[in-house]
């Protein structure tokens, strides 16, 4: 549910004071002694200026509002909801149909109204009314029998009224719906056409997409869940223990970024995918060490520099891109990366107008190079195998004999403190100069 449904009531609450004011005026206008002269159930607006001490222009404006909100309706051109300063006829709307009493206009009532019109005019509704009727038929299909039954009943009841009354009631009802369900403007058609075109284009592109068989996709979930289950504390617990259960934070300490020796599960996880290795700071460091031995460390450094451009401040992009070019891409650069000529050409061209994504192609090329070549070799290397062998399998935390004795829950330094300290150090350095 969206908050906007709440604000709909808000809108009514905002409108109520205005509606109340309008209604007060309308009532006094209809006062038999002080109000406007009525003639055979019709009224002429020219009398208004005498009753309220306002200018003609303002009187006309106020009158327009009355028509717009449905308190007065024109008889000659009912669809034209404006007030004309001539002797055309208008009628006061009955309080039953006032905005304050019958707001919001219900879908059900509108459906009944259109159904009645449909039956009376034998299917000759106006274009936009036809559309609304069909849309309603679809949307509230489950109560459609009720709608048709009500429509028939109301038509039958109205036939038993005097002709004069019946015409007035029909006018009143029509006026109410013209205010509450105005006909759509040409702009609306333009906008809807535009939206429809976009949707059609989108659907055409979707049709052309390459899809994968469900069996292959779904099988991959089974494999993924199986592979990660030992790492999922809610599924299979965690060693030494889940901090939330035992109040012991060993689990977090043993898996921190700066721990001396990682856990076996953690090192194993680096072998699941290249992304897992890179997402772990420790994994990334180990990988960098390996690449240095292979004299291809510049690849990872380049990749990291590109990430920094992509996710960094917009203002710093040009200078960062320039740095990257100098260090990694320029001919004879100290840490030149090996990119294919086509990508290099495209990148260099793009560097003339540096933007956030200018290094994307080059970055992707280097990423997949590492993924296909260096990463698999790292997993087979002595460096990795050694670490895996030395990695810890934590002992499960010994439980206290008395289950009621709760460990003290230690607080930890806030991550915000790290920046604070760095800032303070920086300040101290500046001051000491």
């Amino acid at each position, binding site marked *: *549910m969206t908050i906007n449904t709440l604000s709909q009531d808000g809108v009514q609450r905002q409108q109520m004071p205005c509606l109340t004011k309008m209604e007060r005026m309308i009532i006094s206008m209809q006062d038999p002694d002080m109000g406007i002269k009525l003639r055979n159930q019709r009224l002429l607006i020219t009398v208004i200026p005498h009753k309220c001490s306002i200018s003609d222009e303002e009187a006309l404006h106020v009158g327009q509002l009355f028509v717009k909100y449905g308190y007065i309706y024109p008889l000659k051109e009912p669809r034209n909801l404006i007030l004309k300063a001539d002797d055309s006829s208008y009628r006061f709307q009955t309080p039953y149909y006032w905005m304050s009493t019958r707001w919001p206009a219900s879908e059900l009532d509108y459906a009944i109204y259109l159904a009645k019109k449909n039956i009376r005019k034998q299917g000759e509704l106006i274009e936009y009314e036809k559309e609304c009727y069909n849309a309603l038929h679809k949307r509230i299909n489950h109560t459609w029998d009720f709608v048709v039954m009500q429509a028939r009943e109301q038509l039958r009841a109205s036939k038993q009224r005097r002709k004069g009354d019946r015409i007035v009631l029909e006018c009143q009802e029509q006026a109410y719906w013209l205010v509450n369900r105005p006909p759509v403007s040409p702009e609306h058609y333009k906008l809807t056409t535009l939206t429809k075109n976009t949707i059609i284009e989108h659907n055409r592109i*979707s049709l052309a997409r390459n899809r994968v068989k469900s069996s292959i996709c779904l099988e991959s979930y089974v494999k993924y869940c199986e592979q990660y289950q030992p790492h999922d504390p809610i599924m299979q617990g965690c060693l030494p223990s889940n901090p939330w259960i035992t109040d012991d934070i060993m689990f977090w300490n043993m898996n921190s970024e700066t721990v001396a020796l990682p856990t076996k599960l953690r090192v194993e996880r680096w072998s699941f995918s290249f992304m897992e290795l890179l997402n772990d700071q420790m994994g990334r460091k180990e990988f960098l060490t390996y690449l240095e031995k292979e004299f291809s460390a510049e690849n990872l450094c380049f990749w990291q520099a590109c990430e920094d451009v992509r996710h960094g401040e917009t203002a710093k992009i040009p200078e960062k891109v320039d740095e990257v070019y100098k260090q990694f891409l320029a001919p004879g650069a100290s840490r030149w990366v090996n990119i294919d000529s086509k990508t290099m050409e495209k990148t260099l061209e793009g560097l003339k107008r540096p933007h956030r994504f200018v290094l994307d192609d080059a970055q992707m090329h280097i990423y997949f190079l590492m993924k296909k070549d260096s990463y698999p070799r790292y997993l087979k290397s002595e460096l990795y195998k050694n670490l895996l062998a030395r990695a810890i399998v934590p002992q499960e935390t010994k439980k206290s004999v008395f289950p009621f004795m709760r460990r003290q829950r230690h607080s930890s330094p806030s*991550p915000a403190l*790290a920046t604070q300290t760095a800032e303070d150090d920086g300040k101290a350095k500046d001051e000491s100069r």
Partner: protein
Amino acid sequence: RPSDTLTTLKTESETLKTKLEEERAKLHDVELHQVAEKIEALGQFVMKTRRTLKGHGNKVLCMDWCKDKRRIVSSSQDGKVIVWDAFTTNKEHAVTMPCTWVMACAYAPSGCAVACGGLDNKCSVYPLSLDKNENLAAKKKSVAMHTNYLSACCFTNSDMQILTSSGDGTCALWDVESGQMLQSFHGHAADVLCLDLAPSETGNTFVSGGCDKKACVWDMRTGQCIQSFETHESDINSVRYYPSGDAFASGSDDATCRLYDLRADREVAIYSKESIIFGTSSVDFSLSGRLLFGGYNDYTINVWDVLKGTRVSILFGHENRVSTLRVSPDGTAFCSGSWDHTLRVTNRFSYARLLVNWSGSHSVITPL
């Protein structure tokens, strides 16, 4: 006549839609629960709340975890945003927003700032100061500006960019330092209620869900809608990627959660029961993706076996609607926020531990 062109377009749109559904159906050769038949069933889980965070004076609307796995930020209807160390249950920071209904909040990846917004139509970033005397509102940065309420926000891979979704029907990507809009995403036909960033290698897409019952996947660089799914019967309140990034789950007012596969380009599972009548407000996966947690408007939390499609647990802790739910970054617990003013950190109840405690002796028993 303009209405004629519209009618022709409508027909063309409908025809394409039908063709699209046919194409999608052609490659659907098996159902998820069939593939999952060979896996062992999970049996019923018992969940236990480990922490209850009390301090909000009104409905909790949103929460997010810090990367340190223990701190959280939460926001509520009365405009308060609180940063907690959920482990100790201590409140560490509090901000009063100038508006009510703070429907969105997010923790920055560095842990040094939080973002929030709601009925003010904005998303603001508050750097977290450790100086108790400093008013956090003093350093506040106004980043995003929408023309309607802010429904969700999240930082991308750094503190420098924020992704937002709004009641104005759009999503947008912003540069935090300058407040500049980097990209906007148009395509939803109504309020956008939720979003989630993809955990993919190239890190360039995100998914959003809205009141038009659609879930859309977007390219962050071009602003294009890459894929869309329209099978829900009502507003989509929450979307969350499956940990591999190949699929995402959605929770809707139609009382169902659904799983959509991005490569198969279709809905592949529905998680629902006749007895679940009220809408889902928020969903999240356990670390392995095997479990899907759903917070519901009938005050409960249902836990689903993602592969088998069955429910493995139902929790009754909250005393009002569950409005927000997130699993912690290392999967050790999940946190739920509710209209009952509280947040609860919950995980599995372990029978093995109970046994060990009562007998007084210890042994290394693998938790159930």
